């Protein structure tokens, strides 16, 4: 007789408590002698929110996996198309290489570092491009131009299936050219997102018009399979012939959130997507029905969702409302952490010298700063903070003061007047960089060190800018964003600082004037929160948030209310940051938002009921 151990490699245990943490294993059986129950850790599936794309789009094509995906081209909300490719690393999206030929309603296959894109339109396209992880190169055209098609497989063994222009045809890609494959039994003028699996073992599920029909491909011909429960088109998909997911899509008159799971025999409805959508992007992942990624689409905007079947419970990172400041403020500065923050100075009349402390729930007024500090910068903690310049109404000043948790004391002055500068580090080892000096009306590239007594000039940044924001320490900092004057050039690039020299780093995904929207106790987890992105479609009060690891910027969940000239806690971490005050439209805001990062918790063991 076979045993559970022989079958699954897991012994049935007799324990006084549930297994937990990394000792818990999916499918293990144990008897808990304390509560007299036979138990197991059972994997359950759930959708969780991922980070947003840098650019909302629909009719995009997807490739890769949940931890290494591509979003390729697509149709923008405005009447235009995009060649933009974005790369997802399991945390956030960053900008990749652009297609040579702008495309949407197209197909894709392969991985993030070996991707394939083809077809699209209207007008119908036959072009094919290959991606190497950084740039696209044109390859052999399809025999028949088409749009609203789908793809699956790998960069060297892909399928293009159906679509307007050749509704029942399959073409097979061999790494440089396309050849004819078997014809579908049921033509599909729109097959977008319906294809999954490999070139020699593929599945096509759904498609127009509201098809429930499913067909399987063996590398030569298509065979009818079990139908979906709900017919639909323009879906997302993932998996293989024996284990797959179909999600979202368009049903008559509406976007759908429905998800169906295929176990090789039956399609079963499982947990819905959080956001109904169609013409979405999804990965090309033949792992099965235990992992998937869906993103963008009509109704989905820039939103990403991840599917995981696991014994763990994944809670996505998100922003929540925090306690409101006592008064509206813009052009204020900050210091501290999410649960012990400091807000001081302001451009808002009547608030220019106000100081407030945050305890994780509410703000309490403290003693005023001893000069008008609008558009100043901050560094340090709630009990040891330093102000950098600023002035009445945002004028520049060489003033600097230190806060000890109770009151402010004037410091030795900066070596030059500045406002809208970057600040990082601590009360014992601080950094001020960039900003605006008026008079004479000059944008600055200078930087200074604070040693708890005086400011000392350091080396210049590569780019003079005001409204740049900084994160990290005096010995390892990063500054990013900002704007020139009077040219009005917005900057996206970061500069990395090693305590002596500034070196050009990676550019943010969204170019913008950061004001004091930069946070991070370490340069390896630098936040760029909100800001003025009026040089691009994100607008002057963006909700856009991204995180830098000294190599690449990736998107993060957005603020609820976009703001420019708000401030952060400066000593935030990759899992906890704070953004407060700022301006939305013409309104100064008293709003606070708190970010808490993704958490993964071991699920509780389930009792086995014999009744």
């Amino acid at each position: 007789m076979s045993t559970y151990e022989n079958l699954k490699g897991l012994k049935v245990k007799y324990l006084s408590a549930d297994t937990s943490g990394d000792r818990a294993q999916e499918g293990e059986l144990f008897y808990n002698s304390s509560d007299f129950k036979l138990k197991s850790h059972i994997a359950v599936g759930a959708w969780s929110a991922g980070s947003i794309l840098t650019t909302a789009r629909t009719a995009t094509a997807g490739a890769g996996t949940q931890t290494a995906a591509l979003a390729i081209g697509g149709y923008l909300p405005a009447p235009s198309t995009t060649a933009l490719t974005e790369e997802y690393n399991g945390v956030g999206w960053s900008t990749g290489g652009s297609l040579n030929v702008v495309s949407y309603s197209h197909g894709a296959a392969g991985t993030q570092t070996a991707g394939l894109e083809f077809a699209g339109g209207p007008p119908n396209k036959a072009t094919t491009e290959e991606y190497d992880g950084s740039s696209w190169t044109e390859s052999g055209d399809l025999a028949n131009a088409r749009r609203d098609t789908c793809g699956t497989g790998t960069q060297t063994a892909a399928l293009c299936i159906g679509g307007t222009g050749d509704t029942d045809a399959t073409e097979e890609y061999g790494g440089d050219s396309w050849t004819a494959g078997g014809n579908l039994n049921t033509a599909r003028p729109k097959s977008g997102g319906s294809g999954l699996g490999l070139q020699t073992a593929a599945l096509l599920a759904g498609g127009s018009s509201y098809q429930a029909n499913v067909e399987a491909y063996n590398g030569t011909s298509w065979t009818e399979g079990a139908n979906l429960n709900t017919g639909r088109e323009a879906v997302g998909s993932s998996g293989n012939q024996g284990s797959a997911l179909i999600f979202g899509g368009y049903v008559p008159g509406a976007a759908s959130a429905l998800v169906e799971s295929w176990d090789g025999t039956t399609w079963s409805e499982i947990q819905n997507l959080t956001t109904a959508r169609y013409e979405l992007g999804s990965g090309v992942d033949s792992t099965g029905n235990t992992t998937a990624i869906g993103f963008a689409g009509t109704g989905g905007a820039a939103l990403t969702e991840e599917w995981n079947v696991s014994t763990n419970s994944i809670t996505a990172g998100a922003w929540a409302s925090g306690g409101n400041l006592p008064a509206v403020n813009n052009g204020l500065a900050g210091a501290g952490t999410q649960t012990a923050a400091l807000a001081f100075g302001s451009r808002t009349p009547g608030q220019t010298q106000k100081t407030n402390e945050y305890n994780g729930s509410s703000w309490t007024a403290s003693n005023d700063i001893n000069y008008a500090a609008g558009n100043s910068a901050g560094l340090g903690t709630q009990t040891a903070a330093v102000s950098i310049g600023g002035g009445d109404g945002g004028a520049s000043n060489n003033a600097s003061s230190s806060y000890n948790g109770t009151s402010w004391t004037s410091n030795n002055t900066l070596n030059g007047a500045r406002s809208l500068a970057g600040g990082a580090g601590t009360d014992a080892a601080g950094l001020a960089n960039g900003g605006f000096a008026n008079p004479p009306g000059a944008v600055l590239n200078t930087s200074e060190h604070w040693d708890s007594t005086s400011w000392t000039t350091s080396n210049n940044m590569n780019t003079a800018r005001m409204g740049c924001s900084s994160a990290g320490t005096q010995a390892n900092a990063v500054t990013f964003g900002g704007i020139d004057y009077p040219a009005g050039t917005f900057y996206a690039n970061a500069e990395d600082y090693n305590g002596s020299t500034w070196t050009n780093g990676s550019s943010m995904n969204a170019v913008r004037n950061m004001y004091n929207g930069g946070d991070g106790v370490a340069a390896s987890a630098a936040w760029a929160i909100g800001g003025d992105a009026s040089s691009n479609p994100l607008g002057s009060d963006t909700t856009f948030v991204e995180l830098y690891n000294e190599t690449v910027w990736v998107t993060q969940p957005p603020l609820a209310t976009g703001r420019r000239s708000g401030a952060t806690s400066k000593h935030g971490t990759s899992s906890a940051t704070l953004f407060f005050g700022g301006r939305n439209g013409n309104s100064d805001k008293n709003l606070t938002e708190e970010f808490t990062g993704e958490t993964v918790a071991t699920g509780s063991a389930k009792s086995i009921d014999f009744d």
Partner: protein
Amino acid sequence: MALFIYGTATNTGKGFFTHEDRRNFFLRGYSGHDGSNPIDVWVVGNNEKGALWLAEASGTEKTKVEAQALVKAADDIARTAWDNNDVDGESADEKVARIGSKPGFISIP
């Protein structure tokens, strides 16, 4: 089915929207004006939890046209205030440096 519902509700601070709310539905806030006072305008994902949130926030549901009109009213006030915020002898560039560019019109999704 419409993708969003629209409404007005005053952001009362901590707990007004939670991390769970942000995971459950789309939420985006805009500055509006009702002719007398500033007002917070919200675009909310049209699902059960989004609708429940607006109700629990003591919100007033609006049509998209009504919500856009409230936002435009705030935009109009902002643009007029910008036009009227002049300093004698100041150049256009200096004005932009002092108070920023003239606000544009915001379109809600």
